[in-house]
């Protein structure tokens, strides 16, 4: 077993040595990029003190969301480990990049992959900081640099995303679990060699010296499997594979929960899907979300939960009641202007699903 081997290096037009003029020409000659940069809101992040974990606040929401994720285009969430095909029961493949499997040999999406995916969309549709980037400090728009709360110094104000997903020194309010596939087994796909973003050569990443926005890849009708010669076989979850997971939350306000529902694609006005794992440029990783049940408590229900050993089952909602509750919270989120409409509209164009977009062919 070897870890992180260098990918094969195919020949590629060497943009680095070309003159600026030629570089522009070659950029124009290339097909359209399979991603967009969603610009930042006009106003700076609205910082607030997060709710914290010390108690369940009576006027906030606590509970669990039960999710079903359906794979729409082949999904590969890499472990970073390449093994021989014989190690995972396929003797015809010499080397393959693996996905996480649980002790029952069921494919698993790490909680961290899901959290990152959901968080990045949540950041884009609210006035939140750019929490993880290698862009230089001067290139980051004013007040958009990463939140750095210092509880010991009493500095606790953070952006909306950091309030619920956490920041360095401050624990978030949402806990993701691994999503486990309902069926055993896996498919094998192919991942062509993908390239680094080259921000030094592609000017579109910047506008007036500042980063132009957050990068999101389009969904496509399918993923390309064998478009390129160079690449590596990958263990994948094929179309229609179903994963289930639960998402635990505490101390959320109605608009925070509503925004989370929007991000999970539960708003009929904004039918968006998640883009998870590797191979995003070639159309991989599209997943639609269904909220199957919610266990949500607040106020008196909270008190009831903590004065009896057998928790009342009636707090779990499904079906129409669940749909009504979700739409109610979504409306609260829209009405409170917690969600930035221009950003959400722009994001809808990128993450809309179903789509009729074809995956890019050749080198983009």
């Amino acid at each position: 077993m070897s870890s992180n081997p260098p990918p094969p290096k195919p020949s590629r037009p060497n943009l680095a040595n070309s003159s600026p003029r030629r570089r522009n020409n070659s950029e124009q000659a290339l097909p359209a990029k399979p991603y967009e940069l969603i610009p930042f809101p006009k106003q700076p992040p609205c910082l607030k003190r997060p709710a914290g974990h010390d108690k369940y606040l009576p006027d906030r929401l606590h509970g669990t969301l039960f999710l079903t994720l359906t794979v729409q285009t082949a999904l590969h969430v890499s472990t970073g480990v390449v093994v021989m095909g014989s190690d995972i029961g396929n003797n015809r493949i010499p080397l393959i990049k693996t996905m996480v499997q649980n002790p029952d040999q069921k494919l698993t999406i790490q909680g961290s992959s899901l959290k990152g995916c959901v968080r990045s969309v949540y950041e884009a549709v609210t006035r939140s900081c750019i929490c993880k980037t290698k862009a230089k400090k001067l290139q980051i728009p004013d007040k958009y640099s990463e939140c750095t709360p210092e509880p010991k110094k009493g500095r606790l104000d953070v952006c909306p995303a950091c309030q619920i997903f956490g920041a360095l020194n401050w624990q978030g309010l949402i806990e993701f679990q691994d999503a486990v596939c309902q069926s055993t087994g896996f498919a094998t796909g192919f991942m062509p060699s993908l390239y680094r973003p080259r921000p030094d050569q592609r000017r579109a990443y910047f506008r007036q010296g500042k980063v132009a926005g957050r990068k999101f890849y389009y969904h496509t009708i399918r993923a390309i499997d064998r478009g390129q010669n160079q690449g590596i076989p990958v263990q994948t979850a094929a179309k229609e594979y179903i994963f289930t997971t639960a998402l635990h939350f505490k101390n959320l306000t109605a608009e925070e929960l509503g925004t989370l529902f929007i991000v999970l694609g539960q708003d009929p006005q904004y039918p968006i899907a998640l883009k998870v794992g590797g191979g995003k440029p070639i159309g991989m990783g599209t997943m639609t979300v269904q909220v199957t049940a919610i266990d949500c408590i607040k106020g008196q229900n909270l008190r009831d939960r903590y004065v009896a050993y057998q928790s009342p089952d009636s707090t779990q909602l499904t079906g129409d009641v669940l749909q009504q509750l979700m739409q109610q919270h979504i409306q609260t989120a829209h009405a409170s202007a917690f969600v930035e409409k221009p950003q959400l509209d722009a994001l809808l164009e990128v993450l809309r699903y179903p789509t009729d977009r074809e995956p890019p062919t050749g080198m983009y």
Partner: protein
Amino acid sequence: MHKRLVNHCTIELSLIPDGPILIKSGKEGADPTKPDMEFVETYHQDGRTIYLPGSSLKGAIRAHAERIVRSIGSDSKPTNPNLLWANDPLNDNYDYLKDRKDKQKKLSPPEIHLHSSFTDRLFGNTSIASRLRIEDAYPTDRTQLKLEERNGVAIDRVFGSVAVGPFNYQVCTGGEFKTKIHLKNFTLAQLGLIGLVLRDLNDGWFGLGFTKSRGLGTVRVQYEQAIVQYPACVLNSENQISLLGHSNLSWNHTTLLGVGAFLEESERDRYGFPKDDRLDTPVSAEAMPLGFGVQLTWHGNTVTDLFERSVKAWKKVVMSGATS
């Protein structure tokens, strides 16, 4: 009140990883085949093994117990010392445990107990010892443990490439860790609160260890048995539990007794223990080894019955706070 022992409860339980867990060792070992972040290890039963340290378990249990008390009680000291409240032990200067006139002087032990918060009475503070003791959780069978390596990267929000990482960490996804929780001189409400905390741990309302927000730390709680002992009692000729040296104090042989039941009224009030702290159970008492002491045993899943009953005592404490 630690000067004598009136009741003692031992809850034996197994913690079974429900997904990956990692209690990080904090130090990076010299073994180059291991990930950057390793599980804590120790020597146990002639071999090196990962384990869940008691301190990690107690911290998580205490934090959740405090969270429950603050949510349905108060998070600051109420004027009535018998009301339910939890302090913030990390930022409390404990001025209320010092003499009003002379701040250098501490109050008497019963007063310290009376003025401490509900959770401090159970888990201890710098002035009173903890009533609860929890053992390290060791794997029941080392060969059943499943250890894996996981990787993580932070994706750059602007460029879509790797912003931080890759970093790798060790997780345990299978096996069973056995531990014991000991409670001495407990009130039934305290036992009830522990029951609620363990219920929530089993339900995934809080986790253990590293990276709780992204998939790690959830466990299932499986009860092996619970033993409640009254070391200063014997079973008398009428098959009743009676306190040695106090011929007038005896109870039915199926009675669950909190600390308050054993004390004289004056002493009980000085410490603030509840009156009539007893409940009926379906379990009957039997003599402890060597003929001294009485014990009640709950086996396997019937341990939840013990908790269900003691939560009723807990409810009484909560409700008395709500009415006054």
